[in-house]
């Protein structure tokens, strides 16, 4: 059990993320949608100028939480690629200058743990500091890590985050690999697409989490991540997940699916949705695009949706069924049909859950 007290998200949506302020008319450029970066007024100028976008996003999203909670007991970040743009710059320098003198900034900023490290430096936090880099399950592993930490240290509060950027080089490789749509597409028509590929996205989502229910806005009750190419394995995993955590499928009022418009993975989402015939189905990748840690955006969204009664219609897959207050959400996401995760998010108010 993990309680969420505060979220902060830098994404292609206006910052800060708010249910009543989504932008559904996002310009798709170079097969992707970019984050809307705030002015980062809280980051010292001399530090900001050295940061690549991933580091800027991560630090910028985390600082409002750190500023409000100085006594965080650790920082746990999930990112598949970290600051890939700086990594490529650094690697290119090695070639271009024949392994001669290299600039330190790109090297310092290029490692995936640069965000967690920068946050530790800025907040003078010398406690637990870890970055998980498990591709499409990087954020899920960070979440699992924090859940175990909190079980051991019930009085502690941690900063949890997930982030990834669109980098020029990595984006080109992924595009050539057929992961992004070659035709120009409107984000509003993403789910109607019958072609392969998706729209690239990026973002950074941060959470203040702990074990104390007081002051919480939502809680993560269970998580399962698995590697599988076969739909049957995913279905088995889901069954085990529901049984192990004593979850009644009919109690889940909302299913948030990571559908991304890639026809190759639609059957995974359809199959999972069939297990929850009474649940409303929501989608979100028209708001943030597809990236390795997009499930962190989904958790931000879920945290905002808990106890929400006026869900924007564009989030619904089928205009919604019996609409009401959202208390029990299951997130399902797959990355490239190889990595899958289920995250069970509930209202932090047990009375609300029991009333559903």
């Amino acid at each position: 059990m993990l309680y969420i007290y505060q979220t902060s998200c830098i994404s292609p949506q206006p910052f800060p993320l708010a249910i009543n302020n989504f932008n559904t008319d996002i310009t798709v450029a170079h097969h992707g949608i970019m984050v809307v970066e705030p002015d980062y007024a809280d980051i010292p100028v001399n530090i900001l100028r050295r940061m690549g976008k991933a580091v800027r996003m991560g630090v910028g999203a985390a600082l409002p939480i750190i500023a409000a909670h100085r006594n965080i007991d650790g920082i746990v970040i999930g990112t598949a690629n970290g600051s890939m743009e700086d990594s490529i710059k650094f690697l290119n320098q090695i070639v271009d200058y024949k392994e001669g003198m290299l600039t330190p900034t790109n090297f310092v900023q290029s490692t995936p743990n640069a965000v967690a490290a920068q946050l530790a430096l800025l907040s003078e936090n010398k406690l637990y500091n870890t970055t998980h880099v498990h591709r499409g399950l990087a954020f899920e592993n960070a979440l699992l890590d924090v859940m175990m930490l909190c079980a051991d240290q019930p009085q502690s509060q941690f900063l949890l985050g997930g982030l990834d950027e669109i980098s020029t080089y990595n984006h080109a490789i992924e595009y050539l690999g057929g992961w992004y749509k070659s035709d120009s597409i409107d984000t509003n028509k993403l789910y109607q697409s019958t072609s392969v590929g998706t729209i690239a996205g990026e973002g950074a989502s941060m959470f203040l989490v702990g074990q104390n229910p007081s002051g919480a806005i939502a809680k993560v009750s269970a998580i399962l991540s698995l590697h599988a190419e076969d739909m049957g394995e995913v279905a088995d995993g889901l069954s085990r997940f529901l049984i192990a955590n004593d979850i009644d499928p009919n109690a889940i009022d909302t299913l948030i699916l990571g559908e991304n418009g890639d026809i190759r993975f639609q059957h995974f989402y359809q199959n999972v949705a069939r297990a929850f015939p009474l649940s409303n189905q929501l989608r979100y990748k028209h708001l943030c695009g597809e990236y390795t840690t997009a499930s962190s955006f989904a958790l931000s969204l879920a945290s905002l949706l808990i106890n929400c009664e006026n869900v924007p219609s564009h989030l619904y897959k089928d205009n919604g069924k019996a609409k009401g207050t959202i208390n029990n959400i299951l997130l399902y996401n797959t990355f490239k049909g190889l990595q899958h995760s289920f995250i069970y998010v509930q209202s932090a108010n047990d009375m609300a859950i029991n009333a559903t």
Partner: protein
Amino acid sequence: MEHTALKNELKTHIIQYLNLKIEPEEIKDDQPLFGEGLGLDSIDSIELIVLLDRNYGIKIEDPKEGRKILVDVNTMVDYIEKNRKK
């Protein structure tokens, strides 16, 4: 290269290497690079050493020598003019 042109070129390089959000003309020739002037720090000093190596073929290996060179644009240009290899 003419003295003033070299100064302008160096200022452009400094801005590019250090990702400063200013224009070349905003850097005064005698403005201290570190501390109260441009406010650069130790990581920037390494970037400037790399800048001199890549653009002018100058290798600074003695930190004491570096402190005398990396004072302001004037001192850097004087050193470049006397020691450049490209």
